[in-house]
């Protein structure tokens, strides 16, 4: 069957772009949008994908990442769909891409001013764990009533002695809206703060778009005596590349039973390995 450039019809794309502009104008605010069904399942990145499809042009260079890898199931699936319906240039190199769609990671290479990072969002509502009702959470945001979000963290400290929220750790955007940053590790939260690129977040099933425009304050929720903490890899070294100070996957050597660590952002690791190779050569 014949299909439009970037799958969606132009009316749909226009609606998504209008809502995206609104999201950029109100950093951290969840803008409802109609959300089309896509050939990729709901919950598999359709929010991010709709943003990508509505924004992409023939001159764009696309990178798609899932869990830090360009070759993971979801990344391959999404890249194939965009590629089949647009034929745009693809890359695995963060610095080369104009449009980066990612699930659960912000790349290790910092974004540049012309780049757009699209994050896939399963649960856009940071207050959902404390309030199941949409109409009530909307009111709470309207009133900037975030005590529930803080009490949740406080109760974790009471129960476990420390904050137990792992990924998708809530942030305050531009001093106004508490926002779910999508299930990126806490390690990536600080990358959102005063970032050079545009970060767009799309939730397809929940039908919401939110955004962190460039140079916006993004602060992870915390208390003075219990500061925000990222995952600790300070004493870990990547077995493949020797890199430190990056987010790592924890793996087990089947032969020795030993635990070891490897850089999660695989394209970054490849770039570093190739640099070394060329230096050595």
């Amino acid at each position, binding site marked *: 069957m014949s299909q439009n450039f970037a799958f969606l019809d132009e009316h749909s794309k226009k609606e998504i772009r209008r809502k995206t502009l609104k999201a950029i104008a109100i950093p951290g605010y969840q803008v409802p949008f109609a959300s089309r069904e896509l050939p990729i399942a709901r919950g598999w990145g359709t929010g991010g994908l709709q943003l990508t499809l509505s924004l992409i042009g023939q001159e764009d260079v696309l990178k798609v990442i*899932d869990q830090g890898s360009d070759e993971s199931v979801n990344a*391959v699936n999404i890249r194939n769909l965009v590629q089949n319906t647009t034929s745009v240039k693809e890359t695995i190199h963060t610095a080369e891409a104009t449009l980066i769609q990612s699930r659960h990671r912000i790349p290790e290479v910092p974004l540049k001013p012309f780049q757009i990072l699209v994050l896939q969002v399963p649960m856009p509502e940071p207050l959902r764990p404390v309030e199941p009702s949409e109409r009530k959470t909307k009111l709470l945001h309207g009133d900037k009533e975030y005590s529930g979000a803080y009490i949740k963290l406080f109760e974790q400290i009471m129960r476990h002695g420390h904050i137990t929220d*792992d990924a998708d750790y809530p942030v305050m955007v531009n001093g106004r809206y508490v926002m779910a940053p999508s299930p990126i590790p806490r390690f990536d939260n600080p990358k959102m703060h005063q970032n050079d690129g545009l970060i767009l977040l799309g939730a397809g099933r929940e039908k919401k778009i939110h955004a962190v425009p460039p140079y916006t304050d993004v602060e992870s929720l915390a208390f003075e005596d219990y500061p925000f903490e990222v995952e600790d890899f300070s004493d870990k070294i990547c077995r493949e590349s020797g890199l430190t100070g990056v987010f790592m996957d924890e793996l087990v050597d089947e032969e020795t039973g030993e635990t070891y660590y490897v850089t999660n952002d695989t394209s970054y690791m490849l770039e570093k390995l190739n640099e070394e190779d060329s230096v050595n050569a």
Partner: protein
Amino acid sequence: MGYVAVKGGAHAINNSVLLYKNRRLEEGIDIEVEKIKTNMRQLINQVMSEASFYDRDTAALAIKQAEGNMEEAVFLMRAHRSTLPRLYYSTITDTRDMFVERRISASFKDIPGGQILGASPDFTHRLLDDSLKELSEGPLEDISYKEVGYNYKLYKLPKVIDYLEKEGLFVRDEENNDEPDDITKKSIEFPSTRSQRLQALTRGQTGAVTSLGYAEIRGYGFTSHPNIGECRVGQQPVFVDIDDEYGEYFIGDFEMTEIDGFMPDVADDQTTADEDMLIKIGYGLVFGQNETKAIAMSVLDYSLEHPIDGVPTSDDEFIMFHIDSVESTGFISHLKLPHYVTFQSKLDRMRQGREDQK
């Protein structure tokens, strides 16, 4: 986990797709889409209804491609639907203009126009029929059509509520002919409107709508037995008005099931306490012959219109957010995707807990 797959994932995935596509043909027998279309009528009805996309040919193709998997077939239809611009809404449609193929009332034996049983599995014994192992051609022999005298036209059959209205037992709500809110063009904001609710319900997954409707009447909602005032199935003519000098265009007959459910009074509805008792309606309308779903829809329409505090089936968010097939199956199935990063993050938190204890 000893081997770190930096590259190669794409290749493995492509091969998995190939394996999946070939599975259907492993036995060496293919099936014509036309055969699915003519023989799997009820499956097509469900797929069209849940996809909210009325096209028997496309539905038959989707069913073939999905190997008969409902959620996959609906998903394929919905994804295709997204590529089509939606330009018109139908003009006001009156189901009194439906060409009726089946019409029954469980409330009155003697309804104007009579009970028209039509085709239904309701009156069969569910015993497997071995004779179907052989192929048969054409209609069964012992069916004989006879002309009978009939005072009504099947395409102008009055509704049961018309009779009740004349008797003063039913008071029609004020007609609202505003263009409906379309939840596929604008996301639902709460509190929802009735047109949004009806649309969500008619698109809902058959099993989900049925189960929640069942919960409502069994013990968690008004817990009383509604009466089917009228169940009609037939061909509904649909028109669009494209704003030119030629007036309305007929775009086709849609097979539909319509339910007027007579609902019990709910306690919180004080408005009629001192007045005469009136019949209240819950409404169901779905594509194709889908009677169970349409009845459950009428129950849920009513429970959402007349909410009882604390009842989940009276909560529009609870119902509308969770009955869509593509949304629920998509989110459940996404749990299969790798979550290595988030799990690593969780491990970090758990280990910190242990260190704190030391």
